[in-house]
């Protein structure tokens, strides 16, 4: 099995799709010569030329709208929104157009567009360049929302997103671009809407997304040493959500922790808690815990940034509270 970084895995999915399919192209701010602000598309201009690796003006609304238009015309564009904070500028097109057109045209139109974007704390980009805004988009009927946490998952899920006939908002996490992992020789599409159980356990289920998958796996190791067996589930697709896998896991362990980097309040985790309490009520032996960022803008100061976002220790503390061994 080859080993790829998360960044290379994204690029591999894009390039492979573009090689086999003329309808796939990418566009975004500084993605061509510069290779994107995170270097994901580096080298792609040389292979595919400026027609298919398109730099756009600094207008997220314009670039999102253009991508939607191309998708309606039968292309499969992948638009990169440099920071997910800037999804707020593209929101009109994504929320009011992309999400609605198939429905409002009675199925005459499809919008097979992917909005790739990235965010996350970890290198002090400040309050406007590191938010985790997935909760904004999982709230919109008509959008699919993906948030992959490993090289294998990001490649297989991006592939499925490109070939999905519906608009997909595809979140990547900045601090994951460098992590490496084995991937299958040939790209294997990963179905949208299917969670991954990263680690099996008996006592507590941790449902984690993005960076927190890795923090949770580390917390699980630690908990194991203290005699608590933890199952870690990554939904991978936030919308649609694989409720079945999550509920089955909680029915087995009777306890749950939801962990994401986004602020806890009104976050994606709240929906997961609701699913669990409703479908597994009689199996719960402790209140469901949530782990997320404090309800504050991300501070610029590195120490303060790290204080606001959750880490392994926060997940571990939540795990221990569910088994009655918290502080």
């Amino acid at each position, binding site marked *: 099995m080859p080993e790829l970084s998360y960044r290379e895995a994204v690029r591999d999915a894009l390039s492979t799709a573009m090689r086999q399919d003329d309808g796939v192209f990418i566009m975004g701010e500084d993605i061509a010569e510069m290779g994107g602000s995170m270097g994901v598309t580096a080298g792609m201009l040389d292979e595919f030329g400026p027609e298919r690796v398109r730099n756009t003006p600094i207008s997220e609304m314009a670039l999102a709208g253009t991508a939607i238009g191309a998708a309606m015309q039968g292309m499969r564009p992948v638009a990169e929104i440099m920071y997910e904070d800037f999804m707020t500028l593209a929101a009109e097109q994504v929320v009011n157009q992309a999400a609605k057109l198939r429905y409002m045209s009675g199925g005459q139109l499809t919008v097979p567009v992917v909005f790739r974007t990235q965010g996350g704390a970890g290198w002090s980009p400040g309050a406007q360049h590191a938010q985790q805004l997935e909760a904004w988009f999982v709230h919109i009927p008509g959008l699919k929302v993906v948030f992959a946490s490993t090289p294998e998952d990001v490649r297989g899920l991006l592939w499925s997103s490109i070939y999905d006939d519906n608009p997909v908002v595809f979140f990547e996490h900045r601090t994951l671009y460098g992590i490496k992992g084995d991937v299958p020789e040939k790209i294997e599409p990963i179905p949208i809407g299917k969670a991954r159980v990263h680690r099996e356990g008996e006592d507590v289920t941790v449902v984690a997304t993005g960076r927190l998958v890795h923090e949770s796996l580390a917390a699980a190791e630690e908990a194991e040493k203290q005699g608590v067996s933890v199952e870690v589930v990554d939904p991978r697709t936030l919308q649609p959500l694989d409720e079945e896998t999550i509920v089955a896991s909680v029915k087995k362990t*009777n306890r749950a922790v939801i962990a994401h980097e986004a602020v806890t309040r009104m976050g994606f985790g709240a929906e997961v808690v609701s699913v669990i309490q409703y479908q597994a009520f*009689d199996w719960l*032996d402790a209140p469901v815990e949530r782990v997320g960022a404090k309800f504050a803008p991300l501070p610029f100061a590195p120490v303060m940034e790290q204080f606001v976002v959750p880490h392994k220790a926060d997940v571990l503390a939540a795990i221990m509270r569910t088994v*009655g061994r918290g502080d």
Partner: protein
Amino acid sequence: MATEVKLPRLGQGMESGTIVRWLKSEGEQVAKGEPLYELDTDKVTQEVEAEASGVLLKIAVPEGEVEVGRTIAFIGAEGEPVAVEAPAPAPAAPKEEEPVETARAPEREQQSVTNGRVKASPLARRLARERGIDLASVRGTGPEGRIVAEDVERAEVQPVRAPVAAAPSGEVASEPLSNVRKTIARRLTEAWTVPAFTLTVSADMTRANELVARRRELEPDVRVTVTDLLTRVCAQALVRHPGMNVQYTDDALLRFPNANVGIAVAAPQGLVVPVVHNAEQLTLSQIAHVRGDIVSRARDAKLRAEDIEGGTFTISNLGMFDVDQFVAVLNPPQASILAVGAAREQVVPRDGELFVVPLMTMTLTCDHRAVDGATGAEFLKTIKTFLEDPGLAL
């Protein structure tokens, strides 16, 4: 004209009832079918629904014992006059509630109980419900004294109740009899006058236990118990031995077409025997489902009159309390009752070899006026055969 609310007759033989409390107050709107008051009869405590919609104009009997047919309240239009002299409640038992409350007080002082509500996780609640464990008797070890699943598991292993706070030394506590207690006393005294005989048999429960375990594996949500299997087995045996499914009256022997199997339940307010009706027609899972429902309602004092009427046979299982075997007193007017002990590993010689098998000892008590010894023995033999080879009872 305002509608008079009269004390209804909720079951055969009901002459009076005790109003525990009103669920609506005077002047409040009431819809037909809404629970209006709580009534304690000699069999159950239940909520009684309003038979008319309107404003609850007047509560004539706030609490206490009332004979059937007596007007206890008026429902009508706002401001409508009520032309009655409100009859004073019968003086017999107006204080019924208070002493009962006092008697329960020590239980409430345990951990995990706040304002009368037991703090327990949903899983702990489900386990307790399924296993027939009273959460009020379980000590919670979770955060803030919450009862968690582990506590219920532990309670099941050692079913030793926490000692109820003792009365001050030297004083005898006098507790007025509840209606349920009075009924138990009256009926069992009546049973004592019946000429009864007992028969005892032991059954090898190896295959029965396997069946129960397998059913739990297949249907973890239903959680079949040995009592369910016993219910099924007894119902089938009653069908095969119609001579057992009878009742003695002074001028006739009543023969019943269906096996309505009662299950003795130790409810907080005392012994009650909710009935699994037409048990001969129910599958094991259906029985488990019905049993789960009536037993949990028995423990919550939420049984309705129809839940405890019409029984033709009773099972009293004290196996969970580690009782080896015992003799049950008849549950009149029923003609027989089966007392079931715990299944224990015992060495049994068979064809010159020794085997260790789980043996369960059962004692059948029969009303000799209705049933002869041989009839009872044949019936008991069938139960033993069915338990040892449960496939035969399916």
